[in-house]
């Protein structure tokens, strides 16, 4: 187990370093960063000055090392636009997005795992077909369309939910559904496929031959094994949701990281963009690492070696 953990950890760190290099090189996509940083009133002299102060005159490897070193200490530099430390702004917005992501994930799992299980227990039944339809339709609808339609019905016509902002828990309902709906097909399909496979396995037959109650067979013996790949998927999807919440946050005026990212992109606020990409990537890496660990813990074949 320890060996497994260390191996995974090593890979995670290596990936993180690579991602940080790619993110760092983003700054050179738009030309000379010093000019961008110097801003509107800068003279040639100012730009030279900035090059020196920010180290843009140094070899790129040194620049990268400095940047990474600062980033590791939580210093992502100054936002060009907001004129505040990037880290402060990000950590101010991160909780909102995390909350949204978590709600969306919970919604997705609560919807898709039971549907997947039922669909697997009764293949080709009405519920299976409904689940399949949800999956296929869900994959084909642009998310903003779904979000706006939901706003139209739940918000305007029926007045069930507040439309925008983050004032109360009710404000998170629509964005969470809109965001979570997009991962339900994948989770549902995987749960269904996993359950089908597990349910036809020999040890389920053994469990039934023991005279265990159907619920015990289903939940203790089947779901426990079928859920293992779903855990990985859920972690991966949670990472995707944090990065993919841009559209949803924009529509529902949720002032989270996705919204900040979008604003920063429009303002060409490079340090902010870099930091957000980096933070989200690290998040994803940590999540997949944790998912691996959870998997190992769920699956004794990995845990007990």
């Amino acid at each position, binding site marked *: 187990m320890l060996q497994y953990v260390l191996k995974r950890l090593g890979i995670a760190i290596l990936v993180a370093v690579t991602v940080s290099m790619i993110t760092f090189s983003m700054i050179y996509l738009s030309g000379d960063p010093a000019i961008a940083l110097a801003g509107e009133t800068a003279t040639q002299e100012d730009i030279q000055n900035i090059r020196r102060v920010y180290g843009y005159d140094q070899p790129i490897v040194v620049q990268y090392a400095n940047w990474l070193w600062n980033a590791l200490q939580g210093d992502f530099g100054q936002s060009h636009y907001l004129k505040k430390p990037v880290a402060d702004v990000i950590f101010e917005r991160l909780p909102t997005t995390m909350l949204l992501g978590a709600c969306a994930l919970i919604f997705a799992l609560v919807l898709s795992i039971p549907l997947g299980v039922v669909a697997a227990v009764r293949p080709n039944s009405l519920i299976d077909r409904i689940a399949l339809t949800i999956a296929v339709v869900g994959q084909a609808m642009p998310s903003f369309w779904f979000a706006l339609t939901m706003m139209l019905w739940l918000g305007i016509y029926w007045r069930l939910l507040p439309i925008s902002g983050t004032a109360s828990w009710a404000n998170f309902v629509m964005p969470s559904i809109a965001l979570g709906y997009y991962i339900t097909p994948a989770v549902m399909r995987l749960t269904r496929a996993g359950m089908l496979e597990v349910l036809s396995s020999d*040890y389920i037959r053994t469990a039934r031959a*023991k*005279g265990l109650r159907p619920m*015990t067979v289903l939940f203790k013996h089947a779901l426990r094994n079928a859920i293992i790949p779903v855990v990985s998927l859920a972690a991966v999807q949670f990472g995707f949701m944090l990065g993919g919440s841009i559209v949803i946050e924009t529509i529902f005026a949720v002032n989270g990281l996705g919204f900040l990212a979008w604003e920063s992109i429009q303002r060409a606020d490079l340090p902010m963009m870099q930091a957000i990409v980096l933070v989200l990537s690290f998040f994803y890496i940590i999540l997949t690492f944790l998912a691996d660990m959870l998997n190992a813990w769920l*699956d004794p*074949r990995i845990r*007990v070696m």
Partner: protein
Amino acid sequence: MAERVLEVEDLCVEIPIPSGMLRPVQHVSFHVGQGETLAIVGESGCGKSLTSLAIMDLLPSKAKRRAERLVLDGDALTGMTERQMADIRGNQMSMIFQEPMTSLNPAYTIGNQLTEAMLRHKSVSLAEAKDRAVWLLEKVGITAARSRLGQYPHQLSGGLRQRVMIAMALMCGPDMIIADEPTTALDVTIQAQILHLLAELQDEFHMGMILITHDLGVVARVADRVAVMYAGQFVETGTAAQIFDSPTHPYTQGLLECIPIPGKTERGAHLGSIPGIVPSLVGEIRGCHFAGRCPYVHEACTAEDVSLRPSLDAGHEYRCVLSPQAAIANRNKQAAQ
């Protein structure tokens, strides 16, 4: 004769498939007494595993079971609800499967899986269940039994797992045990140990046992009575001695030629094989199911359905249009060639 634990009369299994109705088990009847071992033998695909699953009511959900009588310990299983059936499974009647590698749940410890049936069926404490599990593990020849309870299936070898499976089947002290090819997946050296163990335990606990196998060598060693199954039907039943000494049905004869039997087959003797393929079991088959492969086939075979009829000795039955004398004569002729 010992008291009958299990009585089966006219058991049928039907499975609807796109091209019609598949009938893998047709009108099977037999009974098993206390301490008695019935071996069901046949090629793979003949319906013997489905027969056992039908008794346990563990058929795939699409499959339908019908039976005139299906009685365990005097209780009719036929009219039972799924709930009542679940109360019997693993309790009065257990099953041992052929794949020890995959028949244990990889996510739970041996101890957990051993005790759960007992905790389900009997009002015992976890400690009591564990004690019985240890006692049984020792019985099936597993050393350091108590420490095994905390281990996971993947930490055990195939032979050990099959022993665990046997112990698991015995947890509630069943009256009836069905062993579906319990040794097929194992090493030859271990096969013998496991069989020996099964026979011993059956004797000790005085259980009825159905042993499903295609290995006639195994049958010869442990079975009291034998049923030969072909294409969904029993084609010959009788005591082990009757079947091995005077096989009457041409299929049984063919089977016995296929397999070297220790002490019965001479070294270097001619090993036969049965030409042809098993008929499709979709829809109705007129006449004898073996007609397509039988060396002695003639018009009468396909004219009408053939039913089981008594052979020369009492309790020995077979399903063929030929008289027992004629059938045995055919065999001897064949052997002489």
